[in-house]
């Protein structure tokens, strides 16, 4: 067969293309994060982090927004994690193949491709109005839970599914029940993947503005009860920028959000790494 390129040369070319693709990806990431942080850093100081906004955010800090973010994200994860992991264990370990399973899987996939603004509208209609929760951290947190759920479910299911089948055989052969096997062998072995799923879900929830736009209100005060309205960081950022209140503070808010996400990601990755090493004896 006639070849334009020798295998050796085509190998080299393809390797360089992959290398360059990787490099560009990292470069884009660094540019975005670097840009936000550089633009935001000048306004970030202890006062900005720990004081209330003044004049709708033109001046002052973002302390209530940080608290609001923590609040809604926590609610979202507290609701979505047990549901998502539970459904994943059911699908991977108990369900087998059937119509119900196919329906659940289809539902989860569809859910994860629905635009976040639709979740916002649904949250408004269902939580805020129908269940009469009003604009509150609870309505916002539950709306975010719906968004995080399919992400947590999908990642957990893959991870539970990929646990070595020989572990469960070993456990069952010792006379353990199915539930003991799931709870004490399979889930611990799948924990790194499940944690990654929870962090991905959190990433979706923590940075979301559209889904909470109609559900959480836009209060500037620190939310105390579940029924208080709030203004998480992404929403604050959105309002500061679109209403032309303060672009500098918008960048500051964005930078704080990015840094929080970076810290959470790095810390969980380190913990997951350590857990995996301990578990696998490396």
């Amino acid at each position, binding site marked *: 067969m006639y070849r334009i390129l020798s295998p050796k040369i085509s190998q080299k070319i393809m390797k360089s293309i992959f290398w360059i693709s990787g490099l560009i990806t990292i470069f884009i990431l660094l540019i975005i994060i670097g840009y936000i942080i550089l633009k935001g850093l000048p306004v970030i100081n202890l006062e900005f982090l720990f004081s209330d906004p003044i004049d709708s955010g033109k001046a002052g800090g973002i302390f209530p927004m940080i608290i609001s973010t923590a609040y809604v994200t926590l609610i979202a994860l507290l609701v979505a994690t047990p549901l998502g992991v539970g459904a994943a264990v059911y699908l991977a370990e108990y369900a087998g193949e059937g119509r119900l399973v196919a329906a659940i899987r289809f539902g989860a996939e569809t859910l994860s491709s629905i635009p976040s603004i639709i979740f916002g509208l649904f949250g408004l209609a269902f939580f805020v109005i129908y269940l009469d929760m009003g604009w509150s951290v609870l309505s916002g947190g539950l709306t975010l839970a719906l968004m995080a759920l399919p992400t947590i479910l999908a990642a957990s299911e893959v991870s539970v599914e990929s646990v070595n089948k020989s572990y469960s055989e070993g*456990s069952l*052969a010792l*006379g353990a029940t199915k539930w003991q096997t799931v709870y004490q*062998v399979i889930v611990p072995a799948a924990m790194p993947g499940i944690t990654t799923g929870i962090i991905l879900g959190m990433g979706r929830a923590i940075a979301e503005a559209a889904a909470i736009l109609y559900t959480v209100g836009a209060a500037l005060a620190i939310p105390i009860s579940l029924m208080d309205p709030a203004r998480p960081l992404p929403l604050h950022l959105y309002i500061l920028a679109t209403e032309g209140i303060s672009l500098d503070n918008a960048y500051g808010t964005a930078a704080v959000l990015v840094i929080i996400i970076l810290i959470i990601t790095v810390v969980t990755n380190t913990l997951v790494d350590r857990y995996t090493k301990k*578990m696998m*004896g490396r």
Partner: protein
Amino acid sequence: MDYRIEVEDLNVYFDELHILKDVSLKIRKNMVTALIGPSGCGKSTFIRTLNRMNDLIDTFKMDGTVLLDREDIYDPKVDVVELRKRVGMVFQKPNPFPKSVFDNVAYGLKVHGESDKDVLNEKVEESLKAAALWDEVKEKLDKSAMGLSGGQQQRLCIARTIAVEPEVILMDEPCSALDPISTTKIEDLIHRLKKDYTIIIVTHNMQQATRVSKHTAFFLHGEIIESGPTDKIFIEPCDKRTEDYITGRFG
């Protein structure tokens, strides 16, 4: 003679596939029985019938009787969990849990309700000693079992099995993934365990069968062609096919 297990006219099907055909075999107490035969002849399916691991496969169907201490293990009243406690299993590939050495051995005890720390410590040490592994792991009981060598992992799996004090230990080619030195250690271990346990070992290694077992059954195409004392099977088999197999003419 006391029999631990009596299998009569056992037929096993997976869907339409007829895997075991009218298999009958009696297995004596506290003795090693080797099952030999070419790949795909039904040896593994046979031992998995003895602890009902085949139940996990949806398409599994069987008829015939399997008695353990004179009780039918396929009786609807039988608790499978209790049965598997009495009939332990060691798999072809060492499959320790991704947990510490200690937790691997303590696992079976814990799932059967033991929670007393002192009892667990004592039983874990006892089982590891019985599996000839204690000296190698006593310093690293809290380290992951995944860090052990293949041979150590397999002895850990044996320790894990004997910790729940079964009557029978099924071994499905326990040495096929191990090097010769580890294999020797497992075989020595089998010799020491046979006085307390009834052991059934599937092996592809003829020498291994002669070294460890007192009785041998030869499987071919889902049937037992011949069974009896290992010496007799290997020195003067009755059936031509047995002779062909053990002399390496096929398989």
